[in-house]
């Protein structure tokens, strides 16, 4: 998902200097949405589908505003975000630790790699019923599952990253008197950081994709996934679409404000990846 965002951002910065260009650029980015919105309205008004199932954009917007000022939508969103961050934090801590261990020690690699390779190809959501059975309906299952599933890309990338640390960096540092502990902190970690960040980014994307579905299955009382799923029962398509909009916004914000910032501050500045 980052490529599209990046490209648009690059366009923007390139054009920032010329004032008139900028307006044209905004128009260019808005135009497709106007077209799609127009088509949506035509279908909605035409009555091909029942209005309840295919609400107009005004209805969706009204529902969005109403759900927001009553605090329902923010409540759902916050619960979802807390679950996301808890699960992702678990995945980050365990994933990076296991991955780095695998990269550093042959023994850890031999032990963990077969387990990880067997678990990884199974789609994460397929574990959901198992987790629900073992840990019950609700938050614990949801968070654990999100953590478990998003740990895989983090493990793989941290592992590769540590293995990709250049031997010459290690030797230089050793020649300058770095002991194992400082070698790890000052060389291995920063050297593997581009990969670790990629892993975290993939992990977060994965966590985000799966969390919405988990919330539907785990019968949690609040959460955007639950909002969408529950709205179906009462044919509240407008609320459902409002929920989907929030999901899109959060997904976009995670990518753009969290990871691009971290990358720009670290590996891009060091020239280890190009922006």
């Amino acid at each position: 998902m980052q490529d599209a965002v990046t490209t648009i951002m690059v366009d923007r910065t390139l054009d920032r200097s010329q004032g008139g260009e900028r307006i044209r650029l905004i128009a260019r980015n808005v135009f497709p949405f106007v077209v799609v919105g127009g088509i949506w309205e035509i279908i909605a008004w035409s009555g091909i589908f029942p209005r309840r199932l295919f609400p107009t954009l005004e209805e969706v917007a009204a529902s969005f505003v109403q759900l927001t000022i009553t605090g329902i939508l923010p409540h759902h969103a916050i619960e979802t975000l807390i679950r996301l961050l808890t699960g992702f934090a678990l995945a980050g801590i365990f994933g990076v630790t296991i991955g780095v261990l695998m990269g550093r020690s042959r023994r850890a690699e031999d032990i963990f790699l077969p387990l990880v390779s067997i678990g990884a190809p199974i789609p994460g959501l397929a574990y959901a019923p198992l987790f629900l059975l073992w840990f019950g309906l609700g938050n614990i299952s949801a968070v654990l599952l999100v953590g478990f599933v998003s740990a895989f890309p983090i493990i793989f990338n941290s592992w590769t990253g540590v293995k990709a640390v250049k031997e010459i960096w290690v030797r230089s540092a050793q020649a300058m008197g770095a002991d194992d502990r400082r070698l790890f902190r000052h060389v291995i970690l920063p050297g593997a950081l581009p990969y670790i960040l990629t892993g975290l980014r993939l992990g977060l994307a994965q966590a985000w994709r799966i969390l919405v579905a988990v919330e539907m299955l785990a019968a949690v009382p609040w959460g955007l996934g639950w909002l969408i799923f529950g709205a179906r029962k009462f044919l509240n398509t407008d609320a459902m679409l409002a929920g989907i909009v929030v999901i899109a916004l959060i997904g976009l914000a995670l990518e753009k404000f969290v990871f691009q910032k971290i990358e720009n501050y670290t590996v891009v500045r060091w020239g280890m990846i190009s922006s």
Partner: protein
Amino acid sequence: MVPIEIRDVSLIYDTPGGKVPGVKDVNLNIGASEFVCIVGPSGCGKSTLLNIVAGFLEPAAGEIRIGGKKVDGHGMDRGVVFQDFAQLFPWRTALGNVTFGLEMKGVPKDERERIAHEQLRLVKLDKFTGSYPHHLSGGMQQRVAIARALAYNPSVLLMDEPFAALDALTRDDMQRLLAEVWRETRKTVIYVTHNVSEAVYLADRVIVMTPHPGTVKAEIRIPLSRPRDPLSVEFLDFQKELLRHLGHETGTNEPTKTNGKADA
């Protein structure tokens, strides 16, 4: 500064294809503050020997003594500069790279930055202390690497073709700079090169190694006064002598192995 003794050193690499000798029965005595260049055909074991002295590889037989003390692993008495530009840490600025060794030693921040600035000035990079390596040219990066190796004041400097990937003009500059630095600091230096004129320009003594598996074939003293003039007759004579030892002129000792490389 300290002398280095290399006694009967051999090393064998264990590869999937079998055992490959790296170096064989190398004997060499290097005086304190001496600048020694090692030349030899590609693959003869120069880098291997240097890595043994640096403590990254353990010899199968023989031993190395630095200042009378037996080498056991890497240590801060030796500074190392590799050929690869990528040896600098990309996540640290030029200054951060140079302070690394001092940081490991536990030198306080102010003190180590003062020393690092001093070293960077010595290699004429005082304007680039805050730059990250990817914003520096290849030659500048190698100069940072030299400053980095000098900063924690090791008594021995080990250099493996540090300028081989530079263009000819930059390389000339760097050689001049290195000669100056050595005159000021008087460290014991082992310098591996393919380049005969570089060896004559820098060294007190040039060691010629045999083709693989390498051992010492000849030693040539270069008693020329410094700074040396690469166009003088004596300089060219030494160059010719070296080439002859490398089997380049007479064509007797496997000339193909050194062809092109020796005068690269």
